[in-house]
């Protein structure tokens, strides 16, 4: 195999994609540290819009929060001019200066030597800049403006804040494309968001697996007994796996029928299906129609670090923070809308049992991804087979295809030069 050509610990991968094209995914995309470094440079620090915050988390000027672009810590801050995103790394000695998860401040001060920055990341003061008694101090040509925190491009839409290391990136609307934008706007429909809380979990798997899992509607009808038994996502329901023109983004969409119907042939295929499984409390499966959308469920994979979850009435964004090829952190921010009645909020919270690292669906996904990473790291074979739906790519209007994964890897291979 071409694997043997790889020189370890170099940033110049000499990997060669295996025969089999997009139906073959080599294990090294999930395991190779050099590939991971290239992903940071070309994807997370490259021409991508990365989720960093919801506007509702920073409701007024002076608010700030810690966040990440890929694995890189950033600060999101709001002043009277709007939102700013800059690296959480003091220009002096590199300290990660912002420690609280969020807060309010008029300026940000590095605790090590009190270098002081405004909420746009501009350096405003340096202690003993002129020295003391004409001794020491900064050089005469020292300019504050040359030592600002590294500032990122920022854009917002529908209450969601994105940032990019790339200063000349296309507008978010063009980056997402019309198909993805339509479902994004259906979720973020202009109602002010109300933050309901956070979950954080690690997944011992490669960050791309999270995208793949949500571009893989095949698993949804097989792994998740809850979806199958209660008619939330059943092979045969009106559904689609939507892919943008670039191949990088996706929307897994499904419409819950009023009367779940599973035909006999599908029942035979789905081991998870059980005629006798019923719920004592069905409240959390109810769907209150509140969105202008044909879909009751849309799970959007927005390249490279965002999942937008609209699972019936439980809403959330998930931020992927990779910490190496073998693990990533997921930060879940669950929300509703400020106009929600108390009962609607309770409904969203009850329905939250479906998702998250203890969710009826969410915990199964995390377990499955762990199993896959252990498989690709430890086994002797080294290629996965992604052949469902043949070689088709792009949008399909059913659940039994891996076309969206192939589309993602077509884009990935172009960007990564693999």
């Amino acid at each position, binding site marked *: 195999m071409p694997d043997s050509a790889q020189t370890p610990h170099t940033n110049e991968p000499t990997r060669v994609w295996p025969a089999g094209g997009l139906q073959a995914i080599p294990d090294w995309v999930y395991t190779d540290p050099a590939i991971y470094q290239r992903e940071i440079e070309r994807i997370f620090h490259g021409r991508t819009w990365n989720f960093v915050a919801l506007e509702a988390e920073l409701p007024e000027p002076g608010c700030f929060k810690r966040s990440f672009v890929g694995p890189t810590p950033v600060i999101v801050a709001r002043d009277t001019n709007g939102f700013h995103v800059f690296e959480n790394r003091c220009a002096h000695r590199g300290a990660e200066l912002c420690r609280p998860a969020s807060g309010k401040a008029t300026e940000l001060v590095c605790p090590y030597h009190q270098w002081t920055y405004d909420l746009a990341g501009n350096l405003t003061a340096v202690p003993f800049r002129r020295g003391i008694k004409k001794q020491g101090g900064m050089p005469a040509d020292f300019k504050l403006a040359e030592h600002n925190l590294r500032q990122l491009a920022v854009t917002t839409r529908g209450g969601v804040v994105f940032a990019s290391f790339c200063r000349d990136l296309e507008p978010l609307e063009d980056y997402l494309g019309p198909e993805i934008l339509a479902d994004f706007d259906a979720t973020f429909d202009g109602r002010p968001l109300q933050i*309901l*809380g956070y979950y954080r979990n*690690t997944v011992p798997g490669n960050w791309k697996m999270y995208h793949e899992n949500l571009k893989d509607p095949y698993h949804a009808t097989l792994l998740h007994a*809850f979806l199958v038994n209660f008619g939330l996502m059943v092979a045969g329901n009106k559904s689609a796996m939507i892919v943008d023109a670039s191949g990088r983004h996706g929307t897994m969409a499904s419409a819950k029928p009023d009367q779940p119907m599973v035909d006999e042939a599908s029942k035979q295929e789905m081991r998870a299906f059980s005629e006798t499984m019923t719920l004592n*409390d069905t409240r959390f499966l109810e769907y209150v129609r509140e969105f202008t959308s044909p879909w009751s469920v849309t799970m959007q994979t927005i390249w490279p670090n965002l999942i937008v979850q609209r699972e019936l009435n439980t809403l959330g964004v998930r931020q992927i923070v990779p910490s190496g090829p073998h693990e990533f952190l997921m930060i879940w921010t669950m929300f509703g809308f400020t106009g929600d009645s108390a009962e609607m909020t309770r409904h969203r919270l009850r329905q939250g049992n479906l998702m998250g690292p203890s969710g*009826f669906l969410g915990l199964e996904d995390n377990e499955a991804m*762990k199993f896959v990473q252990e498989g690709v790291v430890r086994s002797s074979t080294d290629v996965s087979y992604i052949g469902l739906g043949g070689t088709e790519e792009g949008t399909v209007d059913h659940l039994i295809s891996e076309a969206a994964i192939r589309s993602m890897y077509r884009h990935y291979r172009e960007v990564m030069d693999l």
Partner: protein
Amino acid sequence: MDKSAGLKGFAATQVPIDAARIARFEIEEFNTAYAATLDAGKVEDWPAFFTDDALYRITGRDNADADLPVGLVLCEGIGMFKDRALAIATTMMFAPRYLQHHITNVRVLALDGEVITATANYALYQTLVDERTTLQQIGRYYDRFVRRDGTLLLQERHCVYDSLIIDTALIYPV
């Protein structure tokens, strides 16, 4: 990080020492049985520790301190307890594991007739096949017990965890 805040509605009050001693012993007995049930994997027996109208929530300390209502697990009423227990026992896919709860520092906060408000600290250890034992969570229970026919039942249990990053998945109730 506001470290001072406990959960709303769980303020400490003056509790007569004799009554507190009795309540504390009852709670210790209760928690020992609760842990033994979960540690034995008998998740379908778990709902029996709660009243029919009970509330159960697992949430991070960051959410509790900020008064954010989300629950990693949220059960309202015995039906939801039974549904979760049944799903864990019969339909959900996860790797097999051993769990051990260590429950300590029981503190009686208030006594009001047959209602006892209390907290306790917990540590939850997890062991998976071919893996080392890990600390899955440390946290604190915020409990409201009712005494029915001389036996305690939980009307409310909030499991507020300090270990804000969950390792992969939290399968069983805490």
